[in-house]
């Protein structure tokens, strides 16, 4: 078995007096798409923010076997983690192209231009709008830009916080289809937190269900889709 890219053990986090995560464990292996399902307030966003070093936590977070819990966000990005935050992942006052350049901020190599072109190939609409302010894009375009921006750092692991939030179903489907393609072509490992269980499980290899700060169910995506409890809770069947 290959060694995990991300291993989280007994992760606990609090916001002020409120404990949000009560010790969760999960693992992500290279080239996987792993989805974390959960309702509002289950601790999904907190989980991702813990991994990228945005909040203080206790427990263990290992990236390629190295403890990263006490690193700053900028150090964690440099270790190959990119994070698309919920909602506003773009820089509204910067042009589309500048957004992508910010994404490549940690890189000093010469291939940035090539990667920008790759982004434009993935999402041609971004090429059409490359000199527009990101703030003027539609919600779907902004999410594409946010994902592209995150990919610009050439991450090993891409964290995505509810990419489907507030988008029309058709756009979400396109977006998720591209995730699969990116996962195959660029071999980017993905950890997606979602409420939209059906879509997420369709593209995922494995999944975890987070309930009130604890992992309640875990398993292969196919198993989860057929799990009665999950069907009732998330798939409305």
């Amino acid at each position, binding site marked *: 078995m290959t060694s995990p890219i991300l291993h989280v053990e007994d992760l606990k986090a609090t916001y002020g007096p409120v404990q949000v995560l009560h010790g969760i464990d999960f693992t992500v292996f290279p080239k996987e798409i792993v989805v974390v399902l959960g309702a509002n307030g289950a601790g999904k966003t907190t989980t991702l923010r813990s991994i*990228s070093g*945005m909040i203080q936590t206790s427990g263990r977070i290992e990236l390629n076997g190295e403890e990263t819990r006490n690193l*700053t*966000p*900028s150090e964690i*990005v*440099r270790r190959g983690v*990119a*994070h698309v*935050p919920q909602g*506003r*992942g*773009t*820089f*509204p*006052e*910067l042009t589309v192209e*500048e957004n992508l*350049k*910010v*994404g490549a*901020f*940690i890189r000093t190599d010469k291939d940035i231009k090539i990667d920008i072109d790759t982004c434009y190939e993935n999402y041609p609409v971004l090429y059409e709008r490359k000199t527009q302010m990101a703030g003027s894009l539609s919600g779907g375009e902004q999410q594409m830009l*946010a994902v592209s*921006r*995150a990919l610009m*750092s050439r991450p090993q692991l891409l964290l995505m916080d509810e990419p489907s939030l507030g988008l029309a179903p058709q756009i979400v489907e396109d977006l998720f289809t591209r995730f699969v393609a990116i996962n195959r072509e660029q071999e980017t490992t993905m950890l997606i937190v979602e409420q939209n269980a059906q879509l997420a499980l369709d593209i995922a290899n494995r999944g975890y269900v987070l309930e009130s700060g604890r992992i309640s169910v875990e398993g292969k995506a196919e198993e989860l889709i057929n799990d009665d409890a999950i069907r009732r809770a998330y798939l409305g069947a």
Partner: protein
Amino acid sequence: MDLFLQRVVDAITNGSTYALIAVAMVLIFKATTLINFAQGEQAMLGAFAVLQLWNWGIPMWGAVIIGMLFSGILAAGLERAFIRKFDPADHLPLVIITLGLFLVINAVAAIIWRFDPQSFPQLFPSGNAFTYNNVRLSWYSIFAFGSCVLVLFVLQTLLTRTKIGLAFRAVSSNLESSRLSGIKIGPTLQFGWALAAAAGTLGASIYAANPVLQIEPSMMLRALIFSVTAAALGGLDSLWGALIGGLTIGFVQSVVVQYIPFIPNEMSLSAAVVVLLIVLTLRPSGVLGTRAVERV
């Protein structure tokens, strides 16, 4: 007519120096949505450093450049020591800190250099470049305006063409995503503070180099109000807005106030505050500023 033209010239001269301080405030506001009340005092301290260096025998423009570096480094230090630990969304502590810096810097300058006005080196050729009837366009006016435009071009280039400039704009646009893109927020803001202080120092030096003015620790008290108004007119987050705001305020000060009979001469400061009031009431995001959306 001649008088009018002369006053327009004066307006441009004054407006350019206000614009330079305003630009400094804009840089800091862009990055942290903070209005630095100590900006004028930092600039004054920088100008005094320039004067001191010049008195020690360093060539004039060399002194200006070292003075700008000095105030830039000082500002970076101030940011690290006093500003960074506060939440940018909580305005009161930050306002209080910058007011504290205002008092401290003013007092330190007065302790070191005393309150007596001193003459500042002539940065620009003296005399008039151009005389038409009674309208005199001095070299000082030309250079003051020229330097202002030059500084804006340099800043513009720095912010759009360099990596640190891009980082700076990213931070001012979206703090969270900047951190998630690997930008180190602290040093980036420090860079903004340093840049602002350097621009301010240049502004104060040019202001003090005005042949009719002298340098003294309280020289920026009035200029601060004019500059703040200029910055607000431009929307507080637009570099070129600061220039337009500065020129507008210069215009109000030396043209409008002179021609409206019921506004006495010494009311230029009040006129600036009235302009500030009108701008903030009618269009809080300024003339060129971006409108902010308030979130709950």
